[in-house]
């Protein structure tokens, strides 16, 4: 955003900066520099005063030096030629007697993002690493990492790495930690910094000197070290014991993770550790810093996944307080659901009941669903509470209760009777689509137990014209046909009316098609309808499964203290789904990134195979064979599957990567589901030089670990088909290999 009037102000500033009188007066000089910085912060283009600013940096005043450093770092990428001017005076500053100035100069130089700076950096950095002031060494160590990052793909200097490794023995704790951080970045390609026995032991001994950030990071680095013997392992655990009770929650968490990972073969040690961190975790959960509290609650949930009873006796700690933010309340409710047991169920339910009348609709519904969840184990009490809530006749409460009831009827068939008794009267209060659907489903499926079910449904049929949600109409159709099977006399007439309406008057195609479908099904005879519609009315196995899966601690020990418990595993997988293979630091702009992705993909996959493919065999695919979606569909339906195969697959599908990868071997994508959709499907087409077409469907079922591939061919050419399939397989396997 250009700053209006900036030019005028800037001209004036330039005059001031180059005025010898101003330069002679430190106070005025600094004020002028400060004004430049202010202008810059407001978004003005201040690149015009670069030479003057560089000159202003050459005064003894440290404050002014810092201001100029701020300016130079921000402006250097825009004018690399002029930035060289700054480099000169900065190099001079690197020999300044004051450590603060030396450190600042090093930091500034490393922060100049311009090509070719490396050659100027090398010498000052090496000197900085050997500086007698630790302040300078700290800056120099991280400066090395910055320099390597700027260089990009160049070979890493072995001498530098050795120097850094030796600096791990430095006196200053922050230098030690910075060394670890720098080595980790520099050696990223080789798998990061190596923690061998001497280094690990050295770090363990230095732990008490470090500040909380250092401790927390060193504990994370120590995860890499594998103790040689059981004895050594327990020595390490003993040494680190105190950190489980550290004042900083992040150190506690990092220590916990290290303990859990190191003791992966000793379940009793793990259990013991979890008992010992209970106190610190609980105090983090009740702390006044809400964000930290949120993080701790997420981790408590993770622990509860393996040890359901772990926090049961402290259930009161997870009661919500009125003024807490929404996200903490939601987390606490989830925790409460998970730690319910025979002793505390009464109190927990009482508490949750209180939240059901909360002003926030979302929270109230959340509490109702939480009670619904607990109902899978403690059915009677919960159904009682939920029924009571119906008495309030609140729109959002009733809707949520009915939805909870629907899930319950499906999961715990024993409570169906109680649920059915509670239903009458609900229809007047429910307004939203989800609630209506749940109610209609219940009435259709368990209609024989609700005396007035047909009449309630009749009301819905009467008002179907004014119904806004198509999903409700479809649910109504299914429910009414189902109810018709058990109570034909009461339903026949209105079913006729509903079908007539849906087929003749309805504007929504999906509803109309559903109507036609039932109409034709009914024409096929009652037996046929029964065969199609009378599926089981409940599935108790589902509910129990959800409760029983106790994860072993080792399943999440590596995820502890990362973002995964905070986001939840699914969301994390989604968020990182299409992470590019190697984020490059100084590449061409992003328009090219697609093709670059493919290049790196091929180089990582089977390069030779892919390159050889088009020339060998009888197959050569035409690069720009175009096929519209309609043509594709027509051809697809008219052909038989000529080949079917399944490939091993795990994790989500990165659609963009697949698409570009297939494009390289001249296979076009006609249509594709979004990332993370379940089931995931894609339709591909390709044509070879003889005009033979290959149509392919890729299908990935939700819980499946195999990708189903079906290929159809327009002319029967077995050889060509074989080569096509092998090409396709190579690409898919390469992508799968990247994904895992």
């Amino acid at each position, binding site marked *: 955003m250009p700053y209006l009037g900036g030019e005028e102000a800037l001209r004036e500033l330039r005059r001031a900066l180059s005025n010898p009188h101003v330069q002679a007066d430190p106070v005025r000089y600094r004020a002028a520099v400060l004004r430049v910085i202010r202008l810059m912060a407001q978004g003005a283009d201040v690149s015009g005063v670069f030479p003057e600013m560089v000159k202003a940096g050459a005064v003894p005043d*440290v404050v002014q030096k*810092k201001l100029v450093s701020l300016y130079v770092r921000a402006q250097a990428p825009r004018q690399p030629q002029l930035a060289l001017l700054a480099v000169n005076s900065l190099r001079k500053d690197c020999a300044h007697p004051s450590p603060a100035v030396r450190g600042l100069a090093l930091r500034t130089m490393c922060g100049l993002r311009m090509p070719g700076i490396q050659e100027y950096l090398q010498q000052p950095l090496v000197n900085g690493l050997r500086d007698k002031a630790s302040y300078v060494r700290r800056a120099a160590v991280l400066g090395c990492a910055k320099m390597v990052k700027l260089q990009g793909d160049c070979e890493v200097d072995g001498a530098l790495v050795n120097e850094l490794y030796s600096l791990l023995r430095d006196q200053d704790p922050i230098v030690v930690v910075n060394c670890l951080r720098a080595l980790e970045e520099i050696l990223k390609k080789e798998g990061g910094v190596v923690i061998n026995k001497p280094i690990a032991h050295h770090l363990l001994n230095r732990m008490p000197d470090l500040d909380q950030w250092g401790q927390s990071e060193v504990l994370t680095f120590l995860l890499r070290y594998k103790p040689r013997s059981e004895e050594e392992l327990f020595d390490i655990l003993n040494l680190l014991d105190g950190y489980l009770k550290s004042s900083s929650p992040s150190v506690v*968490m990092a220590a916990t993770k290290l303990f859990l990972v190191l003791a992966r073969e000793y379940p009793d040690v793990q259990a013991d550790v979890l008992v010992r961190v209970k106190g610190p975790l609980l105090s983090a959960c009740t702390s*006044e810093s809400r964000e930290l509290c949120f993080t701790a609650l997420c981790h408590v949930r993770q622990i509860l996944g393996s040890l359901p009873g772990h926090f049961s006796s402290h259930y009161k700690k997870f009661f919500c307080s009125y*003024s807490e933010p929404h*996200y903490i309340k939601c987390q606490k409710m989830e925790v409460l659901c998970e730690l319910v047991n025979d002793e505390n169920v009464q109190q927990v339910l009482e508490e949750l009941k209180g939240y059901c009348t909360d002003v926030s609709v979302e929270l109230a519904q959340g509490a109702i669903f939480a009670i619904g969840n607990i109902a899978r184990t403690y059915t009677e009490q919960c159904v009682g509470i939920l029924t009571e809530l119906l008495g309030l006749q609140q729109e959002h409460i009733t809707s949520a209760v009915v939805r909870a009831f629907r899930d319950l009827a499906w999961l715990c068939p024993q409570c169906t009777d109680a649920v059915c008794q509670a239903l009458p009267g609900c229809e007047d209060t429910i307004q939203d689509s989800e609630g209506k659907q749940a109610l209609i489903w219940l009435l259709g499926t368990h209609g024989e137990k609700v005396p007035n079910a047909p009449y309630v449904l009749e009301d819905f049929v009467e008002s179907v014209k004014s119904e806004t949600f198509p999903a409700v109409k479809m649910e109504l159709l299914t429910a009414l046909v189902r109810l018709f099977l058990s109570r034909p006399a009461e339903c026949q007439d209105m079913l006729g009316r509903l079908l007539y309406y849906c087929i003749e008057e309805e504007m929504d195609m999906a509803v109309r098609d559903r109507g036609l479908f039932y109409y034709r099904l009914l024409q096929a005879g009652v037996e046929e309808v029964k065969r199609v519609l009378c599926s089981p009315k409940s599935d108790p196995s589902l509910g129990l499964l959800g409760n029983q899966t106790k994860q072993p601690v080792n399943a999440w020990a590596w995820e502890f203290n990362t973002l995964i418990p905070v*986001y939840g595993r699914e969301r994390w997988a989604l968020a*990182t789904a299409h992470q590019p293979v190697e984020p490059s630091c100084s590449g061409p702009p992003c328009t090219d990134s697609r093709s670059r992705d493919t290049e790196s993909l091929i180089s990582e996959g089977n390069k030779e195979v892919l390159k050889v493919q088009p020339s060998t065999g009888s197959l050569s695919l035409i690069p720009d064979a175009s096929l519209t979606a309609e043509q594709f569909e027509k051809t697809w339906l008219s052909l038989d599957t000529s080949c079917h195969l399944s490939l091993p697959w795990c994790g989500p599908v990165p659609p963009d990567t697949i698409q570009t990868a297939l494009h390289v071997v001249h296979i076009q994508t006609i249509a594709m589901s979004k990332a993370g959709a379940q089931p995931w499907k894609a339709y591909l087409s390709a044509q070879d030089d003889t005009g033979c077409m290959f149509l392919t469907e890729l299908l990935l079922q939700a819980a499946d670990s195999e990708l189903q591939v079906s290929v159809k061919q327009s002319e029967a050419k077995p050889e060509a088909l074989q080569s096509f399939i092998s090409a396709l397989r190579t690409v898919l396997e390469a992508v799968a290999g990247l994904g895992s």
Partner: protein
Amino acid sequence: MIGGLFIYNHKGEVLISRVYRDDIGRNAVDAFRVNVIHARQQVRSPVTNIARTSFFHVKRSNIWLAAVTKQNVNAAMVFEFLYKMCDVMTAYFGKISEENIKNNFVLIYELLDEILDFGYPQNSETGALKTFITQQGIKSQHQTKEEQSQITSQVTGQIGWRREGIKYRRNELFLDVLESVNLLMSPQGQVLSAHVSGRVVMKSYLSGMPECKFGMNDKIVIEKQGKGTADETGKSELGSGKQSIAIDDCTFHQCVRLSKFDSERSISFIPPDGEFELMRYRTTKDIILPFRVIPLVREVGRTKLEVKVVIKSNFKPSLLAQKIEVRIPTPLNTSGVQVICMKGKAKYKASENAIVWKIKRMAGMKESQISAEIELLPTNDKKKWARPPISMNFEVPFAPSGLKVRYLKVFEPKLNYSDHDVIKWVRYIGRSGIYETRC
């Protein structure tokens, strides 16, 4: 590792933006504003993922502070760092407000430069930072030799939190035991949850490198000492049996030697100069609840509500509680309120939907009462009033956890002042945290 730090005002305008890593682009600043600050609904989580970038935010009054990263980082550490950053800023310019941030923006950039390098936290102790941060820069024009050597000695010294050569004419120290007592009580007067989170804050003005030893009435210590001196066992059990307290969980400032605490339960340390937080603790047992709130709400018909609230103070009659404020929530459709109270002032604040009852001072073992008649507008909204809890604020001159400082001894072997020469002050302040009674 933190890729960037942004500070926004309540409108979402960027006040400060500092990017440490190249992977955080300019658009990240806007992404957070659009997705979180300007989002219509409530904040879903303090951690937000937008386009593979994680945003960690905290709010201080109406200022948003956000740390941004693309790595899978350790969430607790990032939040702790943000808190620390707030502390450091507060130490420099007081309250974090838009005006203060705008006035001090150069200083903030300077601070951000020192406490984070390449996204990694560096030295963040306020005391140690003061030597590097040159803002205001009165002295820095001609940095003296002495100061330069100070930087070196401090930075190379073994003790990162204290520089050498500190001298005071008067050796003084202040100990503040600051507690916040949290309560959630059911309408029937049953304690649902209660805990005290406390801090011992020390302000020390001591010369040289003094070694301090701090003692309090922690149960374990007292039992241990009781065993140590066999003769006194009987006495100490009689004398201090009730006065010792059980600490659930405590943590110390970096300067406390933890190994000594674990083995002997003694708290010994060399304190940083000036103010710092010596320890932080939490207790849940035997809490002295300074006030009891007894609510009585009666619905008279559909348009009237009668509320009576009694508060009882429960501490020594000689002590005085201050700044007492009771907040009684009223329904949204309140049309008028009549309040009668014996003590203090009560007012209905329509904008806050509450009756606020303020009492300046109240002695222990007293009782006071307020009664109010609330007239309601008839509404067709059938939504039941959620009855938020009655909350209370107060300040009392004792520690609700029962914690007592038994001694604080100072030894400085090199300089010639002894424990007796040090002037010591101890003060106890108990404040209300979230002190709520459901009605």
